[in-house]
């Protein structure tokens, strides 16, 4: 692997880590609301959140480009404010990846919070735990498997994405060229491909091992 490949790998990692962190912050309240809320809008939101699962990545990238490009509605506003339009930049990549990996974070979190159930939280309330305290000392530990799954799936899924990144990032080496895209115009793609496969496999292995361990200690699924 040449240095360009290493740079591409590094960009992939940075992108995956940033996306995962932001998704966790954004999706936790969203998943909580989907799991615990009583609103009749939940079905609709559930469906919208799952859209990236079924849309072709190029469709997603196309709309993002329209939205975030210098001539796009959001990109234009940002540019008038003196800020760079996110398209063809790292921040554009992050936005695109977050959208693309959204269901991979929301769905495990939502299922995990659902399995925590109202009863454990009510019991904690009668044991003097405030709402935030209940979240961190009861909901998070009980949902830990789901949280781990959400983190690893978001990370691995972002690492492997292609279509959205190509359209919104534009394949600029050293800035927006991730490993999965560097592969594309590589003549010697074997090594980089093998590296990506190995990384994703290792990540999934970690999740499944950890899940098995957690189950052995008696936590609910």
């Amino acid at each position, binding site marked *: 692997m040449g240095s360009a490949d290493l740079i591409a790998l590094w960009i992939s990692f940075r992108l995956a880590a940033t996306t995962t962190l932001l998704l966790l912050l954004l999706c936790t309240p969203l998943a909580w609301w989907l799991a615990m809320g009583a609103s009749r809008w939940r079905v609709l939101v559930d469906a919208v959140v799952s859209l990236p699962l079924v849309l072709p990545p190029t469709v997603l990238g196309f709309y993002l480009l329209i939205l975030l490009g210098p001539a796009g509605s959001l990109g234009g506003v940002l540019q008038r404010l003196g800020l760079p339009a996110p398209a063809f930049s790292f921040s554009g990549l992050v936005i695109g990846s977050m959208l693309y990996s959204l269901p991979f974070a929301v769905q495990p979190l939502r299922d995990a919070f659902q399995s925590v159930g109202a*009863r454990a939280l009510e019991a904690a*309330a*009668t044991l003097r735990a405030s709402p935030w305290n209940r979240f961190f000392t009861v909901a998070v530990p009980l949902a830990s498997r789901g949280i781990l799954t959400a983190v690893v799936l978001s990370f691995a899924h972002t690492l492997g994405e292609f279509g959205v990144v190509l359209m919104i990032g534009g394949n600029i080496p050293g800035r927006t060229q991730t490993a999965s895209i560097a592969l594309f115009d590589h003549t010697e793609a074997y090594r980089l491909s093998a590296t990506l496969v190995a990384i994703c496999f290792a990540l999934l292995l970690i999740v499944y091992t950890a899940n098995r361990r957690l189950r052995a200690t008696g936590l609910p699924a």
Partner: protein
Amino acid sequence: MTLALRVALARAEFALEVTCDIPTRGITGLFGRSASGKTTLLRCIAGLERKARARIEFNGEIWQDQHRFVPAHRRAVGYVFQESSLFPHLDVRGNLEFGLRRVPAGQRRMGFDEAVALLDLSALLRQRAPRLSGGERQRVAIAQALLTSPQLLLMDEPLSNLDQSSKAEILPHLERLRDSAAIPIIYVSHALGEIMRLADHLLLLEAGRVRAAGPLQQLLVREDLPLGHFEDSGCVFDATVEAHDPSYQLTYVRIAAGRLAISLKPVAVGHRIRVRINARDVSLALKPPELTSIANILPATVATLSDDRDPAQTLVRLALGAEPLLARITRRSAAQLGIAPGTQLYALVKSVALMESSARDLTW
């Protein structure tokens, strides 16, 4: 000192509409069929039902009214749920400490070791909650609730999911809790046996409304309530152990109306126990019988007569001084003896049960 309740909450199956005062001492049994609102009322008291329109005042402190809602974690209640509510990610010690740690040291009324001893948990402390038996879980849940030093303990059918042996394992702990008089308890059950064994007061709910409320002894014999019509209906008395007679294997206990002989019980003289006399075990005689095998004979006055479920029988309510006693006799006997309100007679009590053996539970 009371818990003053005015609660309204609509549910699919019933509309809860309760206004009552519950004494904040002893055990108040909350009794009724399923879907009569028992659990919902308990949840309202605990602050787990935000949608309830309620005014809840506990010993002068307002927990809820039109303007205020003190959330569950700020109400001084302990809550024991019907099914296990222990945290599966913690061991027994962690579960017990969960509430304890959240109570400022100065406000703690029960220490960790005390709760562990009271519910006999020392052997379980390292176990994880999912590995415990049903009875063990409920014991941990009771200790967990007590360790938050509540001023009121709410128990929602804590025994209903347990088998007979687990029930028998927990009931003595509950009696000890009651007799230590440390904390008022509201105890939800649809098992009359449990209520008769534990409760001092009774709140009878029917379709979301209060059907009757008052001292257990009085309510058990009210003819307008369904309680007297159970096959095993009867009365309970709080008695004091007076003497033991090992040669005849008898223990003498004193109730207000006189002395009763029961089978020898290993209870220290001077201790209070609760005994139960079933209506079908009471016969009546106009004169004190001279030659009889029945040991317990008490003078009584007839208060009322009413129809029994069985048309051949009649339920006679007697006054033993201030305490009521139920007798179930045939209508023919009642007519032949000329029994009517005011008749002075003698109640012949064939058997007196100490309320500790796991008496068959009477459920609706």
